[in-house]
């Protein structure tokens, strides 16, 4: 199915945000080993995000400065909103300071930013 670039970016942002939320929540869970024991890397948002990134041009080099900044801001906001929603319900142990660090790490890994 042919998808336009904006739609692909939107899907990339959604999946990468989900994956980062997952990673931050994992660190707040006390029985993480329970999940680790069987979590196969068969299907997760990070794998899907990578698939979308491979469809967004330029594939082999970083995105333009304006695209990269827009994506970065969108992901940070999405992740922050998801985590704040949980904090407002009384979820403890969530470290919001990890957001920017993780977003930058994944965006660098996926050649979105330098």
């Amino acid at each position, binding site marked *: 199915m042919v998808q336009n670039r904006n739609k692909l970016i939107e*899907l990339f942002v*959604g999946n990468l945000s989900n994956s980062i939320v997952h990673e931050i929540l994992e660190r707040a869970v006390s029985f993480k080993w*329970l999940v680790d024991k069987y979590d196969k890397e068969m299907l997760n948002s990070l794998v899907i995000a990578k698939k979308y990134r491979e469809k967004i041009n330029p594939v082999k080099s970083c995105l333009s400065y304006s695209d990269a900044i827009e994506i970065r801001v969108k992901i940070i906001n999405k992740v922050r909103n998801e985590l704040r929603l949980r904090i407002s*319900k*009384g979820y403890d142990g969530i470290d919001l300071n990890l957001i920017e660090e993780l977003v930058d790490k994944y965006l660098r890994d996926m050649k979105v930013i330098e």
Partner: protein
Amino acid sequence: MDQIYIPKKRNGLVTGSYVVISALKIRGKVEKPYFYNVKDIEPLKLEMINEMREVIENNIENYDNVLFVGSFLDKRFNFNDIDIILISDDKVNIKELQRNIWRIAKIKIHIIVLSSKELIKGLSTDPWYLMMLSKYISKKRFIYNVKREINYKILDLHLLKSKGLSDNFDILKGNEKYYLVRNMVAILLFLEGKKIGVNIVDKKIEKFFKVKIENIKENMLEKKRFLNKYKEVYTRVFNEIMKGIKNGSKQK
């Protein structure tokens, strides 16, 4: 020089054929496995189980039980790898065991090593463990009686996996969609304190979505209708988890 006699009247091994002489490997007696909720299984799969058990027996010194679980036990041969739970208090070199099973039986396995205590903890707090153990073939009977303990954070983490189905509907394969729907419905049943098992969850999915499991696996879904229902169930489960987190934090 020693001699080996073979019958004069025989099929094959014509005079002048090159042969290899080796000692006959006598298979150790493999105990009859225990079947839980597995009504029938293809003989070939049973043969594979016996081969894997033999490798485990020869490689692992101390273990309490070994359970074969997952889609391998479903009818037909629609599985990617074989899921095995090894119950042992000792540390096990999983990679080596995987390599040995591959070398001898040419079977790709995914192995989880747990102590009995860990497995019981998993069964009391995590719907995935209940799903896994709703059907198995094992070395011996595994009896457990656990009190359900709801850990909302763990459930939230699991549910997050299913979040992407609506956005990624068009690129997901049927099996992947089934996995995500099943994950969500299992969490719902767990929260409601209901019995959990692959068949029970499958029936619930069919009831909720008014679609056959086979149709989900074959990716034959009516997108709009399916997603409307999916979002409705997802929101219900998510709100239930958030409510639990809220109540849990109030109790502290």
